[in-house]
């Protein structure tokens, strides 16, 4: 079969989905959907359709990115627009199916929005919602709309047309197209992709390799997972294009084991590519041969570093080595190797499908195109987003993210994971691009954005990241192995209230040493969270050291919980729930926490009914309370200021 025939067949199959007389139900079952109960929803849908004898097509799709509203389904009735429903429960779904599919009531109360022509009473246009309005969904164009396990859905939507085009071009022509697009590596460092490719292409040697780095290890980042689960072919197509350009005949996708669904979908995708002649000895009759394998990671963060990743593929301990030689000249088994991140490969696909010039219209002068981010933390609308580079930080947090949860104040945003930094609220107007983030002491990194509010302690965050990098340091070079340990010791000391004057300066000195002398990116960037929090939140460090106080009331050793005598009504909920048996009381007695037994878990604060709000959490002060339970109503003066 020629590609044209495959394409025609795919389009016919795709159109038949919407052109028939059966309704179509798309259920988002990527990992985040599943965590919110999407598989239960799926089951209920099947049961309900059978019970009501409705014939409908049910398709499992990936993630549309509105994770805050999961589980999400999309119902398309013949001749009607897509209507997306969110925050569904197994209780509500049978009613929704009956109401919309039988009684023709689209249930605006449950709908998130619609996609299509015309107006729908009471339902907004999906892409006009604040969460989607400033997004540009290019990389994520298919996510949530196609079946990731059906290659024909991908092909029907323009898939593999980029490869067909590339196979008709010279490798030099392809590199020129990528250069025109201005694509830079999405793994973190932002190296121009065309330059990387031409270096590897020019390297001597018959045997060359292509690698996709899908070892998305940054805590707080999940864009690559979502893309691989929702549209794996868009990544794989880019890899074949890259292989053809560089002259590689073998490739690997190195994906972390913590992403079982992504691994499963990649496996299915590779099998389908072989079936359709998009992988193998003679791709689409071009004479070019390329084979690909999936390598499952084994849980080492450092393997996100390219030389460590290659060591891991070779079956060795994932330890980085010094560069040069760069992988472009000596990589996997000493052969020239080109390694790019998941999103970079997907960008290549897009550029070859739509053209370099078209791509370069997005973004700003030095950072072209769009970028996916995972927006998480204390923001109202968490999810997977895609925005043009250069967008303002504030637009992402307040418009797309809908601001901070529980009406708290926005304090900082963490970009770039353990290699990045925390940017304060004052930088809300700075553009999100490679240069601006680096100038602010952070990095673009892999694309995780974790939003923090006033309840987040910045010293604790620095300690959190350091404990991560310290544990993940492979131990090969001294600055990283010992330096991160020493920095962590100091941070632990500060968080425990044992900080000493001069600790901040010592931390800075150590941080700069580790930064400039470590062997690989892990060590060179590990101090960033410490340095940026000191730079922007020095007062918090000082409060911990000088006043033994944690302003955000997070650091356990520096906080205490108290039950306010004039508010406690003696209901006993806190006593029953306290896991440490630290609370004493009785019926209609003012309850008291034994500070020596309290483990500071905060359960009492959570369970105390809001109408009483008798439990408080304080740092740096003591509240006078009775020593033993006394009857409710007994007058007791406390010194809560």
């Amino acid at each position, binding site marked *: 079969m020629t590609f044209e025939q495959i394409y025609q067949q795919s389009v016919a199959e795709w159109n038949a989905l919407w052109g028939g007389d059966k309704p179509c139900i798309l259920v988002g079952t990527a990992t985040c959907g599943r965590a919110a109960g999407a598989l239960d929803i799926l089951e209920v849908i099947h049961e309900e359709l059978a019970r009501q004898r409705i014939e409908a097509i049910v398709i499992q799709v990936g993630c549309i990115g509105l994770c805050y509203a999961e589980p999400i389904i999309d119902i398309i009735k013949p001749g009607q627009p897509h209507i997306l429903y969110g925050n569904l429960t197994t209780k509500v779904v049978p009613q929704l199916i009956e109401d919309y599919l039988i009684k023709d009531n689209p249930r605006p109360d449950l709908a998130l929005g619609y996609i299509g022509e015309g107006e729908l009473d009471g339902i907004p246009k999906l892409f006009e919602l604040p969460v989607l309005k400033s997004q540009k969904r290019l990389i994520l164009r298919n996510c949530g709309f196609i079946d990731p396990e059906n290659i024909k859905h991908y092909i029907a939507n323009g898939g593999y047309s980029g490869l067909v085009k590339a196979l008709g071009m010279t490798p030099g022509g392809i590199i020129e197209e990528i250069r025109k697009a201005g694509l830079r590596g999405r793994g973190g460092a932002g190296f121009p992709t065309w330059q990387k490719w031409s270096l590897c292409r020019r390297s001597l040697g018959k045997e060359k390799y292509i690698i996709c780095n899908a070892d998305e290890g940054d*805590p707080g980042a999940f864009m690559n997972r979502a893309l691989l689960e929702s549209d794996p072919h868009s990544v794989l197509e880019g890899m074949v294009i890259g292989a053809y350009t560089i002259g590689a005949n073998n490739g690997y996708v190195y994906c972390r084991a*913590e992403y079982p669904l992504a691994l499963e979908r990649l496996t299915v995708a590779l099998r389908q590519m072989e079936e359709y002649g998009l992988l193998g000895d003679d791709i689409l009759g071009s004479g070019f041969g390329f084979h690909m394998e999936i390598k499952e990671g084994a849980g080492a963060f450092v393997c996100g570093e390219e030389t460590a990743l290659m060591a891991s593929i070779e079956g060795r301990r994932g330890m980085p080595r010094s560069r040069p030689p760069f992988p472009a000249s000596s990589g996997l088994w000493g052969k020239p190797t080109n390694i790019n991140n998941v999103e970079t490969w997907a960008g290549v696909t897009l550029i070859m499908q739509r053209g370099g010039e078209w791509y370069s219209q997005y973004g700003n002068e030095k950072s072209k195109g769009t970028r996916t981010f995972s927006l998480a933390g204390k923001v109202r609308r968490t999810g*997977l987003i895609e925005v043009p580079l250069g967008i303002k930080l504030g637009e992402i947090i307040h418009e797309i993210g809908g601001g901070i949860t529980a009406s708290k104040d926005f304090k900082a945003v963490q970009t770039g994971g353990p290699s990045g930094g925390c940017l304060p609220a004052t930088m809300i107007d700075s553009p999100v691009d490679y240069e601006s983030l680096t100038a602010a002491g952070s990095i673009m990194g892999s694309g995780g954005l*974790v939003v923090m509010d006033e309840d987040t302690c910045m010293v604790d965050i620095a300690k959190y990241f350091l404990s991560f990098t310290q544990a993940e340091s492979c131990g090969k070079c001294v600055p990283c192995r010992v330096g991160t340990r020493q920095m962590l010791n100091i941070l632990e000391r500060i968080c425990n209230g044992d900080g000493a004057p001069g600790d901040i300066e010592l931390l800075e000195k150590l941080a700069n040493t580790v930064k400039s002398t470590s062997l690989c990116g892990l060590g060179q960037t590990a101090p960033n969270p410490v340095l940026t929090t000191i730079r922007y939140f020095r007062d918090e460090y000082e409060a911990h050291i000088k006043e033994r106080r944690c302003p955000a009331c997070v650091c356990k050793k520096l906080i205490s919980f108290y039950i306010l005598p004039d508010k406690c009504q003696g209901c006993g909920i806190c006593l029953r729930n306290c896991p440490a048996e630290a609370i004493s009381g009785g019926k209609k007695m003012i309850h008291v926490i034994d500070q020596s037994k309290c483990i500071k*878990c905060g359960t009492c604060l959570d369970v105390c009914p809001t109408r009483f709000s008798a439990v408080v959490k304080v740092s740096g002060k003591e509240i006078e309370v009775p020593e033993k339970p006394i009857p409710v109503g007994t007058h007791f003066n406390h010194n809560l200021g």
Partner: protein
Amino acid sequence: MESNENDIGDILTCHKKRRESLIPILQKIQDKLGYITRGTVSEVAEYLNISESEVFGVASFYTGIHLTPRGEYSVKVCEGTACHVRAGERILDEVERKLGIKHDEITRDGKFSLERVACFGSCALAPVMVVNKDVYGHMTVSRVVEILRKYR
């Protein structure tokens, strides 16, 4: 779950006798036996014609490869950034209290083992906890008991 030669013989023969097969072999053995036993280390070393210390070196380097038994149900609590700022540590504390073990330990009846995981990539639903392959999002301290009860 004792290993004998027959147990992993099939796994070994499915893989090429090359160094790059080492990690996939260890992963397959772990899928079957739950962890890498002492005996399998030497079998793998012999099959790939490398030293036992090299096999052990690789097995002990990767946190995803276990050298001690796992519980029937492996409880993993996410410690990613998003989970951390949404108080994931309290979930971990509660699981530790309810199971009576610390992380990286196994209950006496062999039913549960507990691990901290750097990030599951379900950050939008933080805090997250996983039992075998079931993912639980928006965790709260009080839900811990009810979820663990399902597996008892």
